[in-house]
């Protein structure tokens, strides 16, 4: 039994090895850039970044969980679509329509306490699903490139939400949305006692739950199998009788649902508002990083989302060393670049090693033959 377990562990290690190499390389590049800009403070700043969410103990840990919630879900959204061979860079747009819908319901509807926030996040997620459905349909019916379509949907969503805020839930003093009713705020269920002073709420619990559900859908259901088959080989799965067009629409809708949920969970929070200024939500693009770092796996998205959020907290405290927090984005993008290379690198090394082994075997065979 023990021997078996070791064999099971081995492929997992193989699988995450490229990510670990990429993270190492990315951090190294980040350190070098910091040294170029300010060599005296570089190591202090770098260390603070690595300490990340442990800088302020339970407060920063709780903040980390709150900030991780949306990017785990947008990462899940991007990764889920990736499994079907679709690149969803529209998480920002799906998230913003989800966020707006949740806020709209939270401000204007009057629903008794335990149901209000549940209804709000459900409708938010559905709005996101609609925003993913459109590019999915365009892709399925007329083969519109989903990269372009989702980006266009980002801008359409952004302007639509700007208009809707002004029309319905504007707080004219700050040009942003009104506070949602208390009943629509996400509860904390005692998490605020574990992480006092932080922004944590049950959003993170919902996110983890959804990660598990998506993991099950992808790995234990027919739908998940069909979606993945479509991603691996579209023609092959069509030949096998899978309705690939339907799957593309379903996949994009679910991806949108997840991103919409991210928006709803993130904004049903006291003191967090959507503003009427033009700008795409950064969490949508973090989702791409999270999905790529997490190898498009649901569990991977959870880990990568927590990691990104952890290191972002470090970036926040790094400002004490006069480093701008954007260094984190530089590091993350470098990590993604190296993770693109790392898969190839590993493949390359594995081939080399195989060749060497074959040579050895040949030599051994020849020697045996001589004897």
């Amino acid at each position: 039994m023990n021997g078996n377990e070791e064999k099971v562990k081995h492929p997992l290690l193989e699988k995450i090895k490229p990510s670990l190499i990429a993270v190492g390389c990315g951090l190294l590049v980040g350190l070098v850039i910091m040294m170029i800009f300010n060599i005296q403070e570089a190591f202090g700043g770098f260390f603070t970044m690595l300490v990340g969410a442990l800088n302020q103990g339970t407060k920063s840990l709780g903040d980390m969980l709150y900030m991780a919630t949306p990017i785990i879900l947008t990462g899940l959204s991007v990764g889920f679509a990736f499994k079907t061979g679709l690149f969803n860079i529209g998480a920002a747009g799906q998230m913003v329509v989800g966020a707006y819908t949740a806020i709209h319901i939270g401000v204007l509807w009057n629903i008794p306490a335990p149901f209000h926030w549940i209804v709000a996040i459900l409708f938010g997620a559905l709005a996101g699903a609609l925003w993913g459905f459109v590019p999915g349909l365009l892709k399925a019916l007329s083969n519109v490139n989903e990269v372009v379509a989702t980006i266009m949907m980002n801008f359409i969503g952004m302007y639509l939400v700007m208009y809707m805020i002004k029309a319905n839930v504007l707080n004219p003093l700050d040009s942003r949305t009104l506070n949602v009713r208390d009943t629509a705020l996400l509860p904390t269920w005692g998490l605020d006692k574990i992480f006092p002073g932080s922004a944590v709420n049950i959003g993170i619990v919902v996110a983890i739950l959804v990660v598990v559900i998506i993991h099950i859908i992808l790995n234990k259901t027919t739908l998940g199998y069909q979606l993945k088959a479509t991603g691996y080989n579209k023609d092959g799965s069509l030949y096998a009788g899978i309705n690939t067009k339907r799957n593309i629409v379903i996949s994009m809708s679910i991806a949108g649902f997840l991103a919409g949920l991210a928006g709803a969970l993130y904004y049903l929070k006291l003191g967090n508002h959507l503003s009427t200024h033009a700008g795409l939500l950064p969490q949508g693009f973090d989702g791409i990083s999270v999905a790529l770092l997490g190898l498009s796996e649901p569990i991977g998205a959870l880990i990568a989302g927590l990691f990104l959020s952890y290191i972002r907290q470090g970036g926040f405290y790094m400002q004490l060393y006069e480093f701008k927090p954007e260094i984190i984005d530089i590091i993350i993008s470098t990590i993604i670049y190296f993770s693109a290379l790392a898969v190839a690198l590993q493949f390359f090394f594995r081939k080399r090693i195989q060749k060497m082994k074959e040579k050895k075997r040949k030599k051994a065979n020849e020697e045996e033959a001589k004897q």
Partner: protein
Amino acid sequence: MSILYDLFHMSLISAVPLLVVAIGAMISERSGVVNIALEGLMLMGAFVGIAVIKTIEDSNSTMSIQWILLIGILVGGAVGSVFSLLHAYAAISMKSNQIISATALNLFAPAFAIFTARTIQNGQQIPFTSVFRMSEVPFFSKIPFLGDLFFKDVFLSFYIGIFVLIVVFFFIYKTRFGLRLRSCGENPHAADSLGINIYKTRYIAVFLSGLLAGMGGVMFVTSTSTEFNATVAGYGFLALAVLIFGNWKPFRIMLAALFFGFMRTIAAAHAMIPFLENLRIPSEFYNMIPYIATLIVLSFASKKSQAPKAAGQVYDQGRR
């Protein structure tokens, strides 16, 4: 009449950067490498190009304004082309996923621009003061009708755009290298068997697309704004849409760019047009027009689109 004239000019101004960037993307995709890093390449080019323009302005040099713009555009192109080599290395030499490496560049560029700008100066904006618009091109503006349309109130970028279009057309369709480049994007194995160096050809193609994207970035910022603010407003992705709508062919790309330029102009200038102003539709809806138009147009154009067959596929000599 003067409104039509203004609209035409504004459309040209927004169309030119789109044209240049989309033409660059065309070179890359015709060679078989999908380049969705255009946004990042434009941004990097614009960042350094605008920084150089500002530096020249601050140094109180007596250089003429058009020379400053030309230098800025060329610097932007140089930066874009060097930056694009990162994508080329990952996509061609390392056989990585082209979407992932391009996305890494797209994420890196704004972070790098903001980080560097905020570290060196206060704030991420890089303003410039020169007005690059030429009110009149001497001699040519006297030509009746055409002089009004193409030689008054124009940017130098317009002529560079036309130049790029013509040169690239000849390069792709009339030279030996162009033919080889196209063959790499259609059937790289056949091309390889005839002695064409796929890797070298694709490197050159990506390098050129980076060059044009970087130039386009500077053109975009200098003709639509008075500062660089770490964004090119999704133009890189719009250029991809232009490329698809233009069916990977230079002159169709030009028409597509004009169409998108016109759509953007309506979004930006609806208040100028009395008929649209009277409708009293909120400005947010006008701002959506270019993006909705893109979706509609692509849903008609994509069905019969003829993308290069090998675009996006890793070239592996051992695979048949």
